[in-house]
C-alpha cells in the first residue's frame, strides 16, 4: 500500500513538474496570441481562430467576470443612449458635425466591444437594455436593435431564439423585419438546412416572424454558398411570390464566376417550369437582374462572359434590358451599340440602341458623333443616326439635318427630318425663317 502511495505521489510530482512547464509555455503562447490579435485588430484584420477563447474551460470566477463585463458595457451603452437622447432633445442635429462624428465613433467602439461578448453575455446585455427605465421607448428600441445586430453577426440563431423563447421579445421591438431576415441569411450562409429547419419549426407558431421577407433572407444566404440548393428550397418555403425569391437568389451572384454558376443553376431551375412562355419571361426578367453589373466590368470582360454563357434569345433580351449608358465606360458605348446590332433581332435591338444613343448624345455629343462618323454602315448605324439627329436637333439643327440626310431615302429619313423640324429652336425671327425654309426644302407640312 505504502509503495503504491509513494508511486502515486511520484507520478503526481513528475506530472506537476511537467504540467507547470506546460502551463508556463501555454501562458507565454497565449500572451503572444493576444499581442497578435491586437496587432491584427489594429490593422482591420479579423481571423477565425481555432481557439478564440483564452481558456479551454471557464471557471466560476471567469463566468462571473463575463457577467460583470456584460453589465458594464450595458451600463455604458445605456448612458450613451441617454446622452444621445439629450443631445437630440437639445436640438443637436446634422449641423453639429463634430458631435455627430464623436457619437458615431463611440457607437462603433461600443458595437465592437459588444461583438467580443459571447452569446450569453450579449443576451444578458440586451435584457439589461430592454429593462432599463432610464431610456425613452424610441432610444430603447434603437439600442436594442444595435445590440441584436451585434449578436446576429456571429450568432444569428441566438437572435432568432430571442423571438421564439420566453423572453417576450417581439418583432415590433425592432424597427422592422430586417433583423430576422438578415439573421436567417447569415445562418443559411453557413448552415442552410439548419436555418430551414428553424423556419419549418416556427412558421405555424410565429407567422408574423416567419414572413416571406424572412424566407427570402434564408434563400439569399443559402444562395451565396449553393445556388442550386437555394433554388430547390423555394418550393419548400411556400412563398406567395416565388419570382421575387428567384430575383433574390440571382442577385447574390456578383463576380463573373459566380454569375456563371448562378446561370447554370437558374437554367436548371427554369427547366422545371412547364409553361414555355412563363419560362422565357422568367429567363428575361432574371437575366436582367443577374447581369446588371456585367456592363460595368468593361466591354472586353463582359463580351467574353456573354460569349461563354451562350445565352438564349430570352436571356439575351434580359441582358440587353440591363445595359445602360455608363459614363465610367463611355468610350465603349460604340462597341456595345455594334454588339446589340449584331446580337439581337432588329426590333429588340432598335429599342436599346435608341436609349443608349440618346443618353450618350446628351452626355457627350462629340464622342457620339465621332463614333457615328466611323461606324460601319448598316441598320445599327441608321438607327443610331436617327436617334442622334433627333436628339441634337434642339441645339444644332443644321448638323442634325446633315446627319439625317445620310440615311437612305424612305420613311425613316422622312420621319427624322420631321422631328428635326419640330425640335428646331426658334429663338428669333431668323431661326424661325430657317426652320420654315427647312420645312419647305424637305416637303414637311
Amino acid at each position, binding site marked *: 500500500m505504502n509503495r*503504491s502511495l509513494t*508511486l*502515486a505521489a511520484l*507520478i*503526481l510530482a513528475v*506530472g*506537476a513538474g*511537467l*504540467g507547470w512547464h*506546460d502551463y508556463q509555455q*501555454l501562458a507565454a*503562447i*497565449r500572451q503572444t*496570441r493576444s499581442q*497578435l490579435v491586437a*496587432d*491584427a485588430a*489594429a*490593422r*482591420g*484584420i*479579423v*481571423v477565425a*481562430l*481555432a*481557439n478564440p477563447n483564452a*481558456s*479551454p474551460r471557464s471557471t466560476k470566477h471567469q463566468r462571473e467576470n463575463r457577467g460583470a463585463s456584460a453589465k458594464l458595457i450595458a451600463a455604458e451603452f445605456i448612458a450613451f443612449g441617454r446622452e444621445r437622447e439629450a443631445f437630440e432633445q437639445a436640438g443637436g442635429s446634422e449641423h453639429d458635425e463634430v458631435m455627430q*462624428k464623436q457619437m458615431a465613433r463611440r457607437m*462603433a467602439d461600443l*458595437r*465592437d466591444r459588444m*461583438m467580443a461578448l459571447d452569446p450569453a453575455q450579449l443576451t444578458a446585455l440586451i435584457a439589461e437594455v430592454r429593462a432599463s427605465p432610464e431610456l425613452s421607448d424610441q432610444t430603447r428600441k434603437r439600442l436594442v436593435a444595435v445590440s441584436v445586430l*451585434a449578436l446576429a*453577426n456571429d450568432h444569428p440563431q441566438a437572435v432568432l431564439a430571442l423571438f421564439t423563447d420566453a423572453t417576450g421579445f417581439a418583432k415590433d421591438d425592432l424597427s422592422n423585419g430586417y433583423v430576422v431576415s*438578415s439573421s436567417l*441569411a*447569415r445562418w443559411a*450562409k453557413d448552415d442552410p438546412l439548419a436555418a430551414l429547419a428553424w423556419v419549418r419549426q416556427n412558421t405555424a407558431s410565429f407567422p408574423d416572424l416567419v414572413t416571406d421577407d424572412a424566407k427570402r*433572407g434564408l434563400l*439569399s*444566404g443559402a444562395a*451565396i454558398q449553393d445556388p442550386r440548393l437555394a433554388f430547390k428550397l423555394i418550393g419548400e418555403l411556400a412563398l406567395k411570390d416565388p419570382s421575387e425569391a428567384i430575383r433574390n437568389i440571382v442577385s447574390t451572384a456578383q*463576380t463573373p464566376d459566380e454569375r456563371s454558376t448562378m446561370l447554370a443553376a437558374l437554367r436548371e431551375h427554369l427547366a422545371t417550369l412547364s409553361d414555355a412562355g412563363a419560362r422565357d419571361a422568367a429567363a428575361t426578367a432574371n437575366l436582367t437582374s443577374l447581369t446588371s453589373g456585367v456592363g*460595368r*466590368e*468593361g466591354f472586353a470582360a463582359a463580351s467574353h462572359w456573354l460569349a461563354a454563357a451562350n445565352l438564349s434569345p430570352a436571356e439575351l433580351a434580359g441582358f440587353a434590358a440591363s445595359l445602360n449608358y455608363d*459614363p*465610367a*465606360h463611355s468610350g465603349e458605348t460604340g462597341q456595345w451599340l455594334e454588339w446589340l446590332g449584331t446580337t439581337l433581332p432588329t426590333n429588340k435591338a432598335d429599342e436599346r440602341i435608341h436609349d443608349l444613343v440618346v443618353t450618350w*448624345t*446628351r*452626355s*457627350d*455629343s*462629340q*464622342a457620339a458623333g465621332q463614333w457615328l462618323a466611323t461606324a460601319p454602315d448598316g441598320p445599327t448605324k441608321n438607327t443610331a443616326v436617327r436617334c442622334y439627329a433627333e*436628339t*441634337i436637333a434642339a*441645339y444644332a439643327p443644321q448638323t442634325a439635318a446633315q446627319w439625317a440626310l445620310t440615311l437612305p431615302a424612305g420613311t425613316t429619313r422622312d420621319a427624322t427630318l420631321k422631328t428635326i423640324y419640330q425640335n428646331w429652336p426658334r429663338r428669333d425671327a431668323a431661326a424661325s425663317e430657317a426652320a420654315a425654309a427647312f420645312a419647305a426644302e424637305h416637303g414637311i407640312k
Partner: protein
Amino acid sequence: MLPPAVALLVVGTWLGLQRRAISTTEQDCATLRDHLAADSGANSATAKAANPNNKIKAGAPINWQLLAGRFDEMQRAGATADMRVVLRFQQRLQALTREELIAGLDAIPALGLSTDSRSMLEQTLIGPLIEKDPEYVLRHFIDALQDDASGLKWHLATALRDWARQAPGEADAWLDEQIAAGKFDSKTLDGKSQFRTQFEGVMLGILLTADPAAAGRRLAAAPQDQRADIINNNLINSVTAETQAAFTKLVRDQVPAADRPGIFAIQAAQCAVQGGYSKVSEYLAQIEATPAERSMCVERAASIRIFANNRPVTSEDLDTLRTWAGTQAPDASDRVTGNILATATQMTPALAFNAAAELAVHYSQASGNDDVLATFLDTWTARNNKDQARVFAEKIADESRREEILKRLK
C-alpha cells in the same frame, strides 16, 4: 495499485488538455502571423512577419492592394458581411493619417480594380481626408471632375464647403481660377456642368454669410440660364433666418424674373411645413412677393399643407385654403383649388373622381365663375376619366369654354 493508476489518469488528462491548448493556441498564432504577413505586403515582409520575434510596427506601409481586396469582399458580402470587419475597417480608416490617405488615393487608380470597386474605395477614403485637409483635396484632385471613372468627383463640393468655411476669400478666388482654366467645362449637349452648379451653390451658401456682395458678383458671372439651378440645387437649403434677406436680394438682383417664382415657391413650401399658412403669409410679406410669385407660392404651400395630412382632401381643408389664398393671391384661389382637387384623386388615400368633381362644381358655384371646374376638367385626371368628366363639363356655364373642354375630353 489503484492510487498510481488514478494519479496517472489525472496527470495524463491534465497534461493532455494543456498540450491540446498549446497546440491550438500555436495554430492560432500561426494563422494570425500568416494574415499579418500577408497584410504587410511585400514578400520580404512576409518572411519577417512570419518570425514571431519581428513585431509588426504601427505605421508600417499599408498594402493598398490587400486593403482594396478586403473592401471589395466586404461590399460583395452586403447584408451578410462580418460587421466586425466592417467596423474595424471604419476604425482603421479613421486612424489613417493625412499622408496615408493621400498615398492611398494616389495609389488606387493603379491597383487594377474594377471601376465600381475603385469608385467605392475612393469615396470611402476621401471623406476622412476632407475632414483633415479640404484645401489639399480640392487642389490635388480637381482633375477628377473630368475623370468619368473616378468616385472622387462626387465629394469635391463637400471639400469646397469645408475649405470655404475656413477661408471664403481664397476659396472664392480658387473657384474662379478653376472655371477659367476649363476644369468645369462640360461635354453635355446643353453645355451645363452639374459640378459647376454644385460648386457655385456651395460657394454662394458660404458667401451669403461671409460676403453677400461677393455672392452677388459670383452669381452674376454664372450663365443666366443656370442661375436658378445653382440656387435650387445647393443654396436654397442653406438659407437661414439670418441670411434670408441677403438671399432674397440675391435672387431679385441676379435671377431672371421668370425663374424667381419657382425659387420662392420652394421656400414657401418649407414655411408651410414648418408653420402653416400664417408663416407663408409672413414670408410673402418679407420677400415683397409679386402677384406671379404669390400665385406659385400659394399653390406649392397649399399642396404641401393639404397632402401632408395623409387622408383624402375634405371641404374643410379647401375652405381653409381658399380663405387664406383669398388674402394672399385672390386671383390664384380658384385655379389652385381645381389643381388640388385633381391631384387629390391620385394621392393615397385618394379622393374619388366624382367626389372631387362635385367639390369643383360646388366651389365654382360659390365663386360665381367656371374657374375651379374648368381647371379641374383640364387636367390629366379628367382625361383619364373622360366619360365622367364629360358629364361634369356640361355644368360649365361659359359656352365657348365648355366646348373647348369637351373637345379636349373626346
